[in-house]
């Protein structure tokens, strides 16, 4: 007899309300369901009711963590649609801030991995070191997390020499720490025991289930929008995509930590090589792009992010579509969560696996009902609460 163990929607693994329904037998997971409709807000509809300039700030709040990826994508998309020329320096600055956000996001993820395997101290230390990046973000953009930096036509603030120096010295220190964490991931026996071989996703599965970002790259698929479809000045900034072929949670961790180091290099290079000049083209607060459509893709920290816009010539988008990386990775996650053959998934592995795709359901908000039979069981929290309701 299987026992349904709902994880969530309120659960420490995810502050955001997600529901993972697991069918467990003993300590093994035999089936998995994800119901994440709890955070659907209706942003795509709302974007149709905002002007292009207003929509930027809503797009920024599709997700706080990769807000920079969203604004980069949104601004490039709308600029492409309306034919707005962006000054070169602005593109370099966007790249710097985007990579900084990637560092922050991956460090956050490291902390969450630590939390997920119950490694309190690593969580604390990763978050402590992340503050360095957040301080830089606040200094550059004016917001620690949600940056409000990219605007249609360019960026809001320039980085002067003093700030650039500060960024470089802070990042140099951070780099030492990250190298340390990479060694820790490589060496710590418990972390290895908890992640190596967990959440196996073969390259062919990754391809079929349309995985993106670090999940795909840990399964040996060298797919990185920054290489495949350079959208800022990536052709001029040297970097190496990080690819592992261990196909497991450990590989995903290593990809992310490796990307932090790459991003730091990119930021330093960009700071040294960015051309000087204007940072913002003047764009009126309300404008009307010509009818047409545009697709833009950005490599967000979690993988490929796609924005599609269609204009009918008015000051508001006719249709704005967002496909977030977490949505693309959910089918892969579901498949990883199920025990199949000799690949056994323990309850304790679930957070590690689910965490390893770095899910941010808030932008995704989707349900995947794998097995409808579980629905009846799902209401056990109700039963618990029933007494309180009766009073």
């Amino acid at each position, binding site marked *: 007899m299987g026992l349904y163990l709902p994880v969530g929607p309120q659960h*420490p693994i995810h502050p955001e309300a997600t529901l993972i329904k697991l069918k467990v037998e003993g*300590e093994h997971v035999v089936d998995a369901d994800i119901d994440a409709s709890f955070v659907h807000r209706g942003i795509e509809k709302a974007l149709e009711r905002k002007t292009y300039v207003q929509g930027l700030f809503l797009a920024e709040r599709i997700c706080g963590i990769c807000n920079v990826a969203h604004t980069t994508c949104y601004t490039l998309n709308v600029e492409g649609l309306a034919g707005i020329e962006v000054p070169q320096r602005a593109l370099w600055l966007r790249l710097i801030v985007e990579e900084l956000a990637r560092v922050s996001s991956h460090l956050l993820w490291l902390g969450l991995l630590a939390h997920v*395997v119950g*490694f309190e*101290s690593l969580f604390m230390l990763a978050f402590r070191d992340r503050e360095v990046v957040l301080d830089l973000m606040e200094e550059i953009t004016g917001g620690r997390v949600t940056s409000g930096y990219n605007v249609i036509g360019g960026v809001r603030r320039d980085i002067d020499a003093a700030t650039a120096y500060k960024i470089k010295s802070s990042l140099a220190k951070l780099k030492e720490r990250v190298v340390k964490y990479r060694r820790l991931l490589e060496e710590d026996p418990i972390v290895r025991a*908890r992640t190596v071989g967990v959440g196996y996703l073969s390259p062919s599965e990754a391809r079929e289930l349309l995985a993106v970002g670090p999940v795909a790259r840990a399964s040996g698929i060298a797919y990185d929008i920054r290489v495949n479809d350079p959208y800022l000045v990536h052709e001029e900034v040297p970097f190496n995509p990080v690819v592992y072929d261990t196909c497991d949670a450990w590989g995903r961790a290593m990809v992310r930590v490796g990307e932090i180091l790459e991003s730091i290099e990119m930021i330093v290079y960009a700071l040294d090589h960015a051309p000087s000049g204007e940072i913002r083209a003047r764009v009126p607060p309300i404008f009307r792009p010509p009818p047409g459509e545009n697709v833009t893709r950005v490599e967000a920290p979690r993988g490929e992010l796609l924005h599609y816009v269609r204009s009918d010539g008015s000051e508001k988008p006719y249709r704005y579509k967002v496909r977030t990386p977490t949505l693309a990775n959910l089918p892969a996650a579901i498949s990883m969560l199920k025990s199949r053959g000799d690949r056994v998934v323990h309850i*304790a592995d679930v957070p590690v696996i689910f965490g390893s795709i770095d899910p941010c359901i808030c932008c995704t908000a989707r349900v995947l009902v794998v097995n409808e039979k579980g629905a009846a069981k799902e209401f056990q929290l109700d039963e*618990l609460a029933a007494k309180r309701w009766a009073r």
Partner: protein
Amino acid sequence: MIAEALRAFVYPGIAYMVALALLLEWLDRKIVARLQNRVGPYYAGPHGLLQPLADLIKLLAKEDVVPLGADGILFTLSPIAAFVVVTVAAAFVPLASTSGLVSAEGDAVAVLALITIYLLLVYTAGAASPSRYSQVGAVRAAHMLLGFEIPLMLSCLGVLASAGSFRLSELAARGSVRVFGLHAVGFAIFLIAAQAELERLPFDIPEAEQEIVSGWLVEYSSWRLALFRLARDIELLLLSGLAVTLFLGGPVGPSPPGAEPLLYPLYFIAKAALIVFLFSLVRASTARIRLDQFVTFCWRYLVPTSFAYFALAVLVA
């Protein structure tokens, strides 16, 4: 009569035990915080010293909820029994002088037996609540018990055998430190098993927050939770007290004649703090391992080592 009652309830009885237990919890939290480059509790009393007390009072003053579907009797009985069992066990351990509150020949074995009973109560506590999380937690606790119980027993028995006495006060009175040579192994086994017994990282499997919320504790609130937490703290006291008695020479230390009643409690606290520091250090530098990994670890390494240790200790003695 009054002196008796004072002894039983105030010093070195229950009140002292509770105070000491809360002190150790505070120490633990502060040490872990410090190891994580933080401050830890700070505003409740000087340096947060009263934080555990505040938690306790707050919990006692909360609304009492028995979830629907809980086994009412077990749900009420388990926390009380857990508290009583560990308190009785702690009464055997010399916490303030070289003698426990009560002391008898073979009390060491009684303490070990009580610890096992406590663990069984954890299982009933989990099983009594209707939540699936608690049930998974309870099953996990039972699984773990099979792994670390034997090493815990054997590491204690090894020391007792080599000391040739099964009376804790006698061991404490001798004041001999046994952390070198062969006994280093016993000490290490004891610390590991105690860490598991206390359900602390890396062995907090039965209440793994990320997987099953708070495990077997999930449905307990108010005074029940307070009692469980208190029981956990007293258990910390009990196990560090046991470690002090068995391995660190009890509360004995250099003292001018006549000052023992004053100095010995302080020595005890200092030594217990040392043990707690070791516990905290482990907690602060490890991740949680998985249940199956833990059981494998126990049976492959911990149990054989503890048998070897026990056999050697008996032979040497």
